[in-house]
């Protein structure tokens, strides 16, 4: 029964501004797409239930703002994340180059226990644009970078067409599950009445 319990996964989405983080989320959660660009301010939060191998997950998705001026929010936002999604626009080289910065920034701020094996997922978004003709980041290049960072799963997506979005988030759940810590038995101390380590603070003993 305990293993059947619902798990809540905190998922952080990072990437340069305008790469389509909010659009991906909206496509995934609401199955909606708007071509109008609105910058995310601070962060948006969405919730989505996912089923994976008989288990029910709630993804708590933290859609962050890509603009640099919001990066001070870091520590608070990244704390306790179960998975981090790095997004770039396959039509903008700079957004791909910056993946490394985003990854490092995340690892510094969130300081997970096992940074080498922390679950990331990389999404190359906007593959639909211009029929793929304006594409500058090849799949090969992206995959090469991912494998150099400990075999990060890579997905090519189109938030506009809803392509591969579902698969990408399924993978996020799978990865987070893989990384689930073993349940420890919760065993606080028992009060030691006779012994010396009595707990009283500074109260008087009268």
């Amino acid at each position, binding site marked *: 029964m305990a293993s059947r319990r619902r798990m809540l996964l905190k998922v952080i989405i990072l990437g340069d501004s305008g790469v389509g983080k909010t659009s991906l989320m909206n496509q995934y*959660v609401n199955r909606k797409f708007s071509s109008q660009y609105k910058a995310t301010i601070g962060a948006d939060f969405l919730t989505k239930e996912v089923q994976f191998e008989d288990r029910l997950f709630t993804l708590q998705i933290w*859609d962050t703002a890509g603009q640099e001026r919001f990066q001070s929010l870091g520590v608070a936002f990244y704390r306790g994340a179960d998975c981090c999604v790095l997004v770039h626009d396959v039509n903008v080289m700079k957004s791909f180059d910056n993946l490394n910065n985003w990854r490092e920034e995340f690892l510094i701020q969130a300081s997970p226990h096992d940074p080498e094996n922390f679950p990331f997922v990389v999404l190359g978004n906007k593959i639909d644009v211009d029929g793929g003709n304006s594409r500058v980041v090849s799949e090969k290049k992206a995959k090469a970078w991912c494998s150099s960072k400990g075999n990060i799963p890579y997905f090519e997506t189109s938030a506009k067409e809803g392509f591969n979005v579902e698969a990408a988030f399924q993978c996020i759940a799978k990865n987070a599950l893989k990384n689930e810590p073993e349940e420890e038995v919760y065993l606080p101390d028992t*009060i030691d009445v*006779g012994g010396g380590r009595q707990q009283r603070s500074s109260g008087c003993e009268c």
Partner: protein
Amino acid sequence: MSSDDAHSSSSEHDSTDQNPNPSTSIDQSLDAIEGQLTSISLNHRNSPLPEPPIPPPHHGIGDTLPSDAHSQVEEVGAVEKSGSDVEVENSVSRGEGVLWRNSSDVEGEVEGQGSPSSSGYAGGKGTSSSSGVSGSGIEEISGDEVDQGEGGIRSGSFGGSVDSEWVPGKRHVNEDDASVSWRKRKKHFFVLSHSGKPIYSRYGDEHRLAGFSATLQAIISFVENGGDRVKLVRAGKHQVVFLVKGPIYLVCISCTEEPHESLNEQLELLYGQMILILTKSINRCFEKNPKFDMTPLLGGTDAVFSSLIHSYSWNPATFLHAYSCLPLAYPTRQAAGAILQDVAESGVLFAILMCKHKVISLVGAQKASLHPDDMLLLANFVMSSESFRTSESFSPICLPRYNPMAFLYAYVYYLDADTYLMLLTANPDAFYRLKDWRIRIEMVLLKSNVLNEAQRSMLDGGMHVEDLPVDPSPRSGSLSSHLGQPRPPPDSADRCKALLGGPCGLWHFIYRSIYLDQYVSSEFSSPINTPKQQKRLYRAYQKLYTSMHDRELGPHKTQFRRDNNYVLLCWVTQDFELYAAFDPLADKALAIKTCNRVCQWVKDVENEVFLLGASPFSW
């Protein structure tokens, strides 16, 4: 000016007087300002004669007396501050530009998508829905539909017969922050982790509120990042109160018009309840793993929290920080105490015999003392967990005020439907020994008829205002300093009889003994006999308590306040606190006199309504 003088004279207490009962006459403190007040009240009331003592119909204050409502509030003594005037805008809301918004607004969407998209309680949609919520705190009491969780007070005394119909447990699980009904709930409580993972929500499913929970964490963390701390946000009628306890964040969102100090204390108790179940060692789990999800450890405890939150609307112990005893004849309580004392001497840390929320007797091992808040949380835990009723249990529990870091073990056994025994020990192997003790205790209690007496007391109730002795009791001669000079106005007898409730328009009172950490309240009687009225009176007392204990302006000694619903009189000395509610047309001099009588009455029956001789409860 004269009021200041009067006030300071009343605050002169004989510090050598250890009597837990009145040593000062309230007449002295209030009479001196009487003249001043009479002129004030004459300004407001054309006729000095009371109108027929029918309580005004149930209205929002603003509805009936838009212009006069405020001036109807008379205040005395040092208390200058009426609850409605309180202007406390704390540190908060530095992030003026709302940084968190409902992401569905991005597309101009409205709710109704398959999964809740989240945030902005008070933003966008929140604002529109909150304007749909009916206004004042008074209306809130009648707003059962939106406020079902709190609506169920039965008649009976505070802390006495808790309603039998109110069922603890999670409410409205299918709601989330996109539901209109959820947004209209008057009082939300949330607990979340420092990573924004939901731990508890009073209404709705925690997982479906994950986005909302993240928003709360973002707000708290954002302010923390600036080296500040968010305590309170006011948004229209709503107050958002934050409490950070290490890695655990607690938030209350309320439009009940309760003082934010009260809401903060309620969050403290909620945290205490969590510690009672898990101990503060839970912090270590978060240190080791910020992703830690503590909800599995709290599995099955929804009823404990919902019942605690429910008690915030009927149990005065939640704001008085005192416990109450079941009224019993002195020898009966003594008999129970004697056998508990034997157990305590055998190595049990605390032995507690309770009937519902009231203590029959209680004994602590040497030097061990039990905080009233711990008792409240322990009793709530035991009473709201159904499994304790069906078998004898041995359960780890933590007393947050005794030692928040470690567990004790509680042997719990129900002797009958209402009466239960709790033996607390540090020894995890003590079950069988305590079971043997329980059998002995049970025999003694049966033999001395304690259980039957307890049942009878539950039925009869304790102090009824109608029984307040009108004539000075025979013993009052020796206690003249307390009684003051009894010089009843000529018409007092007639008027007393004409009113509902007790003499002189007395409707209800609570007396809290400071030395004993105990309180006694009168049973509810007409006209305070519907749940709605009881809850309203409870809230009025709560507000009064807060204003008396105001950290900046207080503490205060006396307060006399008249509004459409009541005359409220509060009198605080070093020995006791008295809260009394009268007919709104009650005469002030008579009300003051009646309070003296109540104090005398409590003194006369203290053997029965209090547990005496127990060691002091705070060290």
